[in-house]
């Protein structure tokens, strides 16, 4: 029973990682860049939900939609201002710009909303559809947040796979991902395709932010940073560029982290997570579900 409860905690954390990792892996797969500002877009999205839902009492669904709109605009703007001018620059320059963008967002958030933590209201707390599930005479409780996060994660993954494999915009993305130059010659608008990728990735970030903060309710300007890094690790773990890989990597990372906390040591849990990552990458350098990729760094 204890094991199950730890496992469910782990899956809950893992599904949040997975949701964030989807954004990372998609941008990497198509634009071939690591968008380190992704975690901070999540943080901005969470603040939007916090003010819309927590302070103004808007409907939770509306709040998340509003946050998705704000994040989409922000993500596209970041891509337009900071990444597009560097499209032909060495990948290292883009990487540094992304890290710079991440700090910029954190500092701006700190100026606007101060560094004092806010306690985030759960978006599913009073929901009539999602209720906590109690099993084995109340010995095991699965919170509504966990259920919603896992469901959202699966639904989003399926929608993404459908979008990429079965729509023309999705095909354009795949083409850009295969060979940017050739795609352009074939009449694909590369800039528009990459902007679309950022738009989708940032909208996902808004959903991830709302669910992350509902499960772990402490919101401050650095909230997105560490989960962002962990999700990036999850994406690499599962095979970066692969959407099912991001899902699998996220869930596994969350479960390993929580079980090592529970049965080995809370002090060592991070060390164990990263040790597993190193071992996996040594055995399978492209990650669990990754395709053969030549990463240029």
């Amino acid at each position, binding site marked *: 029973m*204890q094991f199950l*409860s*730890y496992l469910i*905690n782990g899956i809950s*954390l893992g599904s949040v990682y997975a949701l964030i990792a989807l954004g990372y892996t998609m941008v990497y797969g198509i634009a071939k860049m690591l968008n380190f500002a992704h975690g901070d877009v999540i943080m901005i999205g969470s603040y939007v939900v*916090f003010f819309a839902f*927590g302070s103004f009492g808007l409907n939770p669904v509306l709040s998340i939609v509003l946050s998705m709109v704000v994040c989409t605009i922000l993500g596209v703007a970041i891509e337009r201002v900071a990444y597009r001018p560097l499209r032909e620059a060495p990948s290292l320059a883009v990487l540094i710009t992304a890290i710079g963008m991440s700090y910029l967002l954190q500092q701006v958030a700190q100026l606007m909303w101060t560094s*004092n*933590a*806010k*306690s*985030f*209201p759960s978006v599913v707390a009073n929901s009539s559809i999602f209720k906590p599930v109690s099993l084995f005479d109340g010995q095991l*409780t699965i*919170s509504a947040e966990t259920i919603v996060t896992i469901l959202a994660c699966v639904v989003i993954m399926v929608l993404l796979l459908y979008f990429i494999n079965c729509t023309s915009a999705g095909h354009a993305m795949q083409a850009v991902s295969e060979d940017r130059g050739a795609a352009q010659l074939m009449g694909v608008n590369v800039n528009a395709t990459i902007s679309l990728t950022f738009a989708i990735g940032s909208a996902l970030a808004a959903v991830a932010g709302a669910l*992350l903060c509902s*499960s*772990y*309710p*402490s*919101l*401050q300007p650095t*909230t997105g940073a*560490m*989960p962002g890094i962990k999700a990036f690790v999850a994406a690499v773990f599962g095979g970066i560029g692969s959407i099912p890989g991001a899902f699998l990597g996220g869930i596994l990372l969350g479960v390993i*982290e*929580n079980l090592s*906390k*529970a049965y080995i040591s*809370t*002090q060592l*849990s*991070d060390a164990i997570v990263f040790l597993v990552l190193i071992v996996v990458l040594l055995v399978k350098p492209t990650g669990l579900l990754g395709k053969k990729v030549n990463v240029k760094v």
Partner: protein
Amino acid sequence: MKKLISAALASAMVLSLAACGSTDTGSNASTGTDSTATAEASNTGSTTPIKLGGIGPTTGSAASYGIAVMQGEELAVNEINEAAGYTVFEFSFEDDEHDAEKAMNAYNTLKDWGMQVLLGTVTSTPSLSVAGETVNDNMFMLTPSASAVDVVETGDNVFQMCFTDPNQGVVSADYIAENALGTKIGVIYDSSDAYSSGIYTAFKAEIEAKGLEIVAAESFTSDNKSDLSTQVTKCQNAGADLVFLPIYYNEASQILIAADKVGYKPTFFGCDGMDGILSIEGFDTSLAEGLMLLCPFSATATDETTQKFVASYEAAYGETPIQFAADAYDCVYAIYQCVQNGSINGDMSVSEMCEALKADFTTMTFNGTTGEGQTWEANGMVSKPPRVYVVTNGEYATAE
């Protein structure tokens, strides 16, 4: 030979200082027409202002602490000067941006200004480097808030107004044992933070010495704290009936929420880092009901000294004082108590003042906003009775 020369030089200096003093009183006597005023002036030694210097981060990441200390000290200086009717203290504050090197520059700037007593620095790391220099200068140093043990161990001229980190752990353990708050103790602490792990180490030793059992000691790090539910579950499964949280209020609020989700209701007990939990935006304070915290100062305490301080601080700066401001405020009043005792005056050299203050601090008892009956050990550590609050109806109430 060298010793002889330096002794001769020193005595010459003392003589010249004494000469200064006597000319001062002389001029007072000649200008003063009221003989009683002159008598008073000579009674308290002199009315030359004592120059108090403060150092702390008023910009940068720790700015909120530095600003609070600066305002607390400034408020106390203004109050004292106003009440006395003449300038007892002159006050100057320098920014160190929570940086050891900048703190040294600030210290040198203040020395050039003529500082006689240092009320700083605010944070522990800069304090350590400045403390070493004050030992060389034999400058009296009273830090409002640098709580690391190393700070007071630098020299016998360094005193603290706040509890040291281990001391909080010891006092908490004693309080829990004496009041039989729990028998099986769980602890959740931040292993990446010196404050938190320092308290935990001392707490563990003391609680075991008192015969209580720690059934779960769980930790998190600053990089790994978004999910604290596993730590809570482990305490629950270990059957802890009291969970000690030597951490800051932000993570503590997450723990309270996580415990509520799994229906776990032990007694939670925190230290001064817990102060602030009721003011987190959006936090459901009913979850904190019954939470106990050991905290030398709380703005909501109802005693007269605190109420008066909080009211005048709010009037002056438009915000509620935090513990740092209270510690700083007490620092100035503790020095003032020595002025009133007649043991120091503005004509003394830095070194003379240091010796006089050392003698006074180790013998006097001080009542301030952070506690009644505060005394200091010769090693500079403060000892004050613990104040424990219980959150009742969303407010702090003094624990029985």
